[in-house]
């Protein structure tokens, strides 16, 4: 085993409930996620002692420190840990993020808070929230596989700074990004079961 940054084969994805959204949402997200990757996806609950770091003076979890705390749970190589939280995540110098992950990291953090239409005063739309969350998780997993942002509109690795942008960018990896994915991700050319579109 070397520490060379070759993409590791993906073997499983665990959705870690950290101050989690309602259970049925987590289940719907995990089910939809398992249709996008070819490895098992499970829900995992957080250890009791786990503390969510917050940003002083702001009603937000600190995305980077939360990410470090999740990474410290030490998922084995090939097993990705995605912390899913209902808390809004931010950063001392950024107002918010939808998700956060390091290139070649072992864990990601995704917040449902701003993916939910009700955040913007719009009617609740569960299917849309689930779809956005899954897409954001897959985007962050792309970073875990070492893939940076992509200029291609049709590519899920395109940077999105708003939920509109998440809705508008492609839902799959473009051929160039797909080529950089380790085994375990559903290849982009394979027929993918339909998502629970609204």
């Amino acid at each position, binding site marked *: 085993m070397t520490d060379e940054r070759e993409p590791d084969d993906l073997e499983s994805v665990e959705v870690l409930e950290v101050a989690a959204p309602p259970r049925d949402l987590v289940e719907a997200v995990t089910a939809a996620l398992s249709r996008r990757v070819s490895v098992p996806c499970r829900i995992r609950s957080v250890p009791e002692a786990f503390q969510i770091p917050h940003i002083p003076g702001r009603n937000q979890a600190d995305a*980077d420190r939360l990410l470090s705390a999740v990474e410290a749970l030490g998922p084995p190589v090939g097993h990705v840990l995605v912390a899913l939280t209902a808390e809004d995540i*931010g*950063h*001392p*110098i*950024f*107002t*918010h*993020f939808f998700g956060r992950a390091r290139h070649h990291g072992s864990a990601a953090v995704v917040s449902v808070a701003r993916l939910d239409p009700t955040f913007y005063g719009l009617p609740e739309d569960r299917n849309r929230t689930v779809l956005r969350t899954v897409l954001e998780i897959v985007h962050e997993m792309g970073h875990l596989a070492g893939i*940076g*942002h992509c*200029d291609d*509109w049709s590519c899920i690795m*395109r*940077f*999105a*700074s*708003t939920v*509109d*942008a998440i*809705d*508008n*960018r492609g839902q799959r990896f473009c051929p160039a990004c797909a080529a950089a994915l380790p085994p375990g991700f559903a290849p982009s050319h394979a027929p993918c079961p339909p998502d629970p579109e609204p």
Partner: protein
Amino acid sequence: MTTEAKKPVLRILVVDDELIVRESLGAWLREDGHNVDVAESARKALRMIAQNGYDLALIDIKMPTMDGLELQTRLAEAASDLSIIIMTAYASVDTAVKALKNGAYDYIVKPFDPDELSHLIRRAQEHRSLAVENVRLKKTLEASAPRIRIVGDSPAMHRIHELIASVAPTDATVLVLGESGTGKELVAAAIHAGSPRRYNPMVIVHCGALAEGVLESELFGHEKGASTGASYHHKGKFEQADGGTIFLDEIGEISPQVQVELLRVLDEKRVSRVGGTKPIDVDFRVVAATNRDLVAMVKEGTFREDLFYRINVVAIDIPPLRDRPEDVPQLAEHFLRRICVSMNRKGMSFSDEAMEALKTYAWPGNARELQNAIERAVVTGRPPTVEKKDLPRYVTDVDASVGAVARARSLKDVEAEHIHRILEESEWNISRAASILEVDRGTLYHKIKRYGLERPSGHDG
């Protein structure tokens, strides 16, 4: 000239005394594809800017010893083409506004909204590409004014020179007519170069090369938002041409729907981005060009009459080369000089027979075909003389008497003959012939059938 390819990578300097800003903002900008350096003080920033040169500096307004405002003032003198974005906390927005009045490009409030930050960066990128484009244009215009002079001493070209000289300084819309290869883009460039708009961009739109939906957002831009599927706004060609000239090449190719939009923009001098609500004032001059018969298209109903009159204010009709054979020697010498320079060959010249052959041939592909033929001759020939044998066979095969007849014959005959020659040249390889002729294979098949061209028997294999 202006392309909508990738946005430029910016060289960015982040100046902040707080480590977390330097680290996190630096990482964010690098992830966006830029080259980022950081400085923890104004003093260090001044040194780095003097050494490296940056496109953009993000400067914290509140720093010990020398604050952002003072740094900005010093940079305004030392590095005037550097764009500066001031970073500020809510409490000091007033000071940031002062910085704007001082010439800062923009300001952003901490903590940064990722959406706002990415807009600011995109805008700086657009600003940068326009600035680069302007500098480049300025340089080419100043360094090579003679290159925009259109070669040709025939009476017909004299009239065109005079027309360009008289119309260029005005804002009149110009319609350039002429067959493919006659140099319509060159006429547009000469008009732009001779106008007071010359230091602003000339933006070229090849209308024929763009698909329907794309053309609209190419020309008029689009707003970000769900209705356009765009997460950033995009400046259309008219906005990019603000202050300059927009060259609408192949205007005969645009769809009726875009014709309506175009007419409106030309009348109102305002554009509405696709998905946008508020129109934007733009200041542009239009030069359009086509090789199609717009009058016939108006009669057929495929080109709007009102649009035709709107663009046909001053028409410049470039005659085909076969109608002004006296221009061939001068053009040929001009191309030869230019090609020799670009291929780094010392002063070549034409032999008498070679020049005679060039003068005799009818040049259905006009100046562009002449240029290609000479380029080929320079590649295959041996300095210092271009001999007749170095020229493409289809040029030299025509003997003088046939050439004289060729000039007098109809365009159809000339086209048929030219296609036949190219087919022979390429040994009836349709793809190769189509690419030399710059038509698609379908068009070529169609013409072969129409002119009844046949591959000579015994020539296959």
